[in-house]
Each structure stands twice: as C-alpha cells, then as structure tokens.
C-alpha cells in the first residue's frame, strides 16, 4: 500500500510537470472570446457568433495554426452567455480579461455592446461585434469594429423593394423599449419616411411574453405593414402569431436581425407569414452551402441555423488575418491598425467594403453583399442579392 509521502511526492511531480508544459502551450495560443446570448429569445444570434468563432478557429488549427510572427499558434475559443443585456456582456468581457482573451467576437445586441465597450476600452480588447445601436462604434472606441452594417446601410434598399412589391403606405414598427429596440426602430422609421411610407413606432417592455394587447393596439392603427425590427426572433414569432389571430391580414416585415426560420416556427409555419419582407445577412449560394459542409467536418456538428453565422465567419477571418499581418496576438492596437488597412476580401463571401464614416464617424464597419428576402402570397421567393451597402 502506498503511503501518504509517496502520494504527495507524485502529486508534486505531476504539478511540476504540468507547470513545465503550461508556459510552452500558453506562449503560442491565441484566445478568442465568443460573446452573445446563448440562452433566451435571442439565443440564435449568440449561437451563430459562437459557431462562427469556433469554425474559424478550427480552420486555422486544421491548417497548422495561426501565423503570429515566427510561430504557428493554436486558436482557442471561450464562449460566454451575455444574455442579451449590458450586465451580462460586461461580465463576459471581465471574464475574458481574466482568461487572457484579447479578441472578442461578438456581442450581437445593442445592450450587450453598451455593456462590453467600457471594459474593452479599459483592457484594450479588440471587439468585432454586431449591434444596430446608433453609437455601436465610433471614434472614441478605436478598438471596436462592426461585423456588418446596421440598418442605416441596408434599410433604405429593403423599404424600396417592399414598397414596390406590396404597395405599402403605412407601417407600425414594433420593438423593445430599450436601446436595442429604440435605436433601430428610429433608423428604420427614417428609412420608411424617406420612401413615402408613414411610420409609427410601438414599443414593449423586454421580457413581455404575451403580445395580445399590443397586437390589438397595432390593429387599431390599421397599418399596411407591421415591422418587427430588432425584436428577438422568439418575441417576433409570438407577435406575428397573435397579430394573425387578431385578424391582421396585412404585410409583415423585419428590418432587423435575421431569424425568419425561428419566427415562422414560433408563429406556426411559413404559411402564417403570408406576405413578409426581411433583411438577410447573406445570400446562401453554393459556396456558402459548401461552407456549411466544412463546418460539419471541422467542428463535428451542424452549423448554427441563423444566417448571422456567415458574416461572423467573414469578420472573424478578418481578425485572424489582421493578427497574422500585425505579427502579434497581444498588441491589439497594432492588430486594429492592421485590420483597418486590410482589403475586405473573403474566399467565400467575395469582396466587400469598409464603411461607417458617414453614420458613425469611423470607417470600421465591414460591408459585404446582403440579401433581401420576400414571401409573396405565401410563396417564398429566392433571396435577392444586393450589392454591399456603401453607408451613403
């Protein structure tokens, strides 16, 4: 029987051995933090961010690691559930700092972006997030980048198509009454107004689960269209379901984050949508379908359902390219400087643009071609590809 001294000696030897190995591994590891809602009604978006970060990490690792200076480094991803609120995102950013993470992929909501920016600024984290807040990025946050344009970039084009297709003259925009809802609703409203569609804004308390009363209020306005804007897909599905139950027969739209599948599932199927227009992050062509297959091979699971996955793959790849160009995985200012000078080009998504100067005052917003989805009289049309938003 082994005595306590033998066990103690063995334990010490194991700790010494681990300690010897640990610095060698940590010295060449690039840690990404994936931040977004992994639970709750906006979970689809967070899962898309996490999936994208894990996929790009797997791509780099399968190729032998990310080139950082003279070394090939392993890319790892730590995910944190920001719960689609500011405190969750702030907690996530602090957690990442404690884990030595320097690059944050996400978050995806305006409340989350509000929570993450001060901590990112204090700790020099480079953030590649997606938020439709009016102040999502700006000159005061030089390390914060936007993975895709907000509604200021694409809403006017979609309103134009919706007006031509359905002949709408009035719209009620429904959104949560926090920054995540009010910012996008006001930008959407301006896009409608410019195209001669009279908008009205209707807000609800985030956390509302029964929208029957709000549906009744909307119907009393008798709008041609109801736009669920940036309401989480789960909420939007209930809104659509209860509007239809209340007898609303008009057009439905969504100038906000993607989630048509989830909305249809909660509402009771595609038939319930009937006439529906929406912003789609990308047009999933054969090349992007192949990307889904590669995800399955590399990660060993089905790719996240939400199409926000795709732009975050492109955005994460831009970050890895910037790290390689800067030759450092610790100096985020140098990586940000490299990122700004990189041409927007991706093997799967094609060419894009850096935009944002006009709306945000800083050119740190990635813009790739996007899609416009339409369901007309219950028949889905192929997603129409639209050239990358210029931000003008």
């Amino acid at each position, binding site marked *: 029987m082994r005595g306590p001294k033998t066990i103690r000696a063995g334990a010490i030897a194991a700790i010494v051995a681990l300690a010897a190995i640990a610095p060698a591994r940590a010295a060449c590891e690039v840690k990404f933090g994936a931040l977004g809602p992994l639970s*709750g009604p906006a979970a*689809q978006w967070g899962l898309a961010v996490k999936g994208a970060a894990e996929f790009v990490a797997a791509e780099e690792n399968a190729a032998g690691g990310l080139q950082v200076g003279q070394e090939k480094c392993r890319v790892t991803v730590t995910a944190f559930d920001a719960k689609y609120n500011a405190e969750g995102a702030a907690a996530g950013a602090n957690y990442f700092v404690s884990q030595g993470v320097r690059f944050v992929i996400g978050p995806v909501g305006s409340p989350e972006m509000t929570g993450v920016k001060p901590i990112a600024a204090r700790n020099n984290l480079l953030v590649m997030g997606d938020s439709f807040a009016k102040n999502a990025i700006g000159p005061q946050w030089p390390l914060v980048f936007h993975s895709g344009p907000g509604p200021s970039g694409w809403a006017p084009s979609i309103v134009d198509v919706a007006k031509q297709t359905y002949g709408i003259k009035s719209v009620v925009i429904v959104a949560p009454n926090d920054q995540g809802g009010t910012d996008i609703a006001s930008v959407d409203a301006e896009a409608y107004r410019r195209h001669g569609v009279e908008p009205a804004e209707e807000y*609800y308390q985030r956390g509302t*689960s029964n929208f029957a*009363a709000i549906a009744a209020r909307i119907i009393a306005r008798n709008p041609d269209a109801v736009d669920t804007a940036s309401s989480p897909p789960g909420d939007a599905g209930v809104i659509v379901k209860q509007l239809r*139950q*209340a007898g609303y027969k008009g057009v439905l739209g969504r100038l906000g984050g993607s989630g048509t599948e989830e909305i249809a599932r909660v509402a009771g199927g595609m038939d319930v949508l009937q006439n529906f227009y929406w912003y789609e992050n990308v047009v999933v062509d054969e090349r992007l379908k192949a990307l889904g297959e590669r995800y399955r091979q590399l990660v060993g699971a089905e790719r996240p359902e939400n199409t926000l996955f795709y732009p975050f793959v492109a955005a994460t790849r831009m970050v890895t390219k910037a790290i390689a160009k800067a030759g450092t995985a610790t100096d985020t200012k140098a990586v940000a400087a490299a990122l700004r000078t990189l041409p927007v080009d991706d093997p799967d998504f094609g060419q894009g643009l850096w935009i944002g100067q006009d709306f945000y005052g800083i050119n740190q917003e990635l813009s790739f071609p996007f899609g416009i989805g339409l369901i007309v009289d219950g028949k889905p049309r192929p997603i129409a590809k639209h050239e990358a938003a210029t931000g003008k």
Partner: protein
Amino acid sequence: MTSFVTATLIGVSLGAQYALLALGFTLIFGILGVVNFAHGGFYVLGGYAAYWFVSAAGLPYPLAVVLATLVTGILGYLFELLLIERLVDDHLATLMLTLGLYLMLSTGILITFGPESPLFEFPLNGTLRAGPFYFPIANLVVLAVCLLAILGVYALIFRTDLGRALRALADDRQVAAAQGLRPRLLFPLAFALACGLAGMTGALVTPILSLAPHVGDPVLATSFLIVILGGLGSIGGATVAAFLVGLVEAYSSVYLGGSKGALALFVLVLIILVVRPSGLFGRIAREA
C-alpha cells in the same frame, strides 16, 4: 368600444392563466411558509413535458397536458419530501434550495432541448369572430380549462378533508399537528399540487405563446406580484389579484402602449400596497 371589449377579453384570458400560476405559488407560501423560486421552472417543465409527450411519444395533446401535470406534480412531491422538508422552517435555506432547483431545471432543459423554440402548436386553430370582436379558439379552451382548474382547487381546499387539513396547517401548524395532522405527509402533497398547477399552466399556455427554456423567468415575477397584491397566502386574494392584474395589463397596454402600460400596472400595485400593505385581502397570513 371595440378596443374596450377586446382588452377585456384579453385581460380575462390573461387573468385566468395568472390565477392558475398564482394559486400554486400562494398555496406553497400559505401552507409551508416557503417562497418557491422554482415556480417558473415547473411552468417551463410542464411545457416541455407536454411537448415531449406530443412530439416524441406521439400522444394526443389533452393526454400530454394531464401527464405533464403529473410529472411536475411528482417532481414537486419528491423535491419537497427529500429536500425542502428537512429545512422547511429555515426561510433562507428554502429560498436557496428553490432558486437552485430553478437554475437546475432551466439549465437541464436548455441542455436537453437546446435554446431554440421547438414547433409546439395548440391542436385547435382559428378565431371566433363577431363583427369587430375576436377570441382565438385556443385561448378560449385554455380559459375554460383554467377556470375549471381554479374551481377544482377551490373545491379541494374548501370542500375536502385534505383541504381542511391543509388550511389547518396554514392557520397554525403546531395546533394542527397537536390535533393529529401530519405535516410530513401533507406538505409534499401541497407542494405537488402547486407544482402540478404550474406545470399544467405551462402545458396549456406555451403552445399558444412560445416554448423556450427562458419562458419561466417572467412567470416568477408575475406570480410574486399577484400573490403580494392579493395578500400572501390568501387563495381568494390571489385569484382576485390575478384577474385584476390581467385586466389592468390588458387595458393599459391597449390604451397606453407596451411601455407605459407596464409602468401603469406597477404604479397601481404600488398605490394599493401603500394603502393596504398586507395586500387586497389584508390579513397577515403568516408571521415572518
């Protein structure tokens, strides 16, 4: 006039659902003196259990609702018997236990079923219409079942020996025990009844709204609000307060909008509590 009638129908429908939830919550507090923070968890579990019985086991929806009620009731019974019972007089311990159970339930559901909403539809579609007025058939069925369940709870509590025993324990546990009533036998039954009610509400309501692991979060807040407004531990108070909250929520949302409506509800509750600190049916149900 159309808006008023519509808001009234919505309010009554909401009130019945809230009443079923709040009855379970207030029963546990009134009889055991425990604030059940896992109440929303049993609501979600009821929804997912019914979903599983329909989609995986292929059972008809009404049977799935009955089974979901039983599953949540049995789980509640075991939870009380094995954990709560040991610490039933320690308010902080039971608070932590029920909160912990809620986290375990919601995380377990998240891991098992994933974070996305499954397709779980009420078997009856369509809407009854009379001129400008409407009422979804599913809501009507849920309203009828909720009202029947509320009557059933009343009959159980006020017309049976079990109910009399539970009320006696709620009034004065020591005297009731001295009379031969056995808390160790009756407490798990009360807990099972309350959890079964929450599970049944989840099984009934989630297909007409949505089913996802997080949908229990607002349930706890609403139940708390109603039970405090009605008077902690008061069954009649909880029922009246549930319909009051449902109606106020509906009227204020229809006339003031989603933001101001929520504010109006809480202002009203605040005023009532300032005037009647022990709730609408203001007797002190239990010494703290």
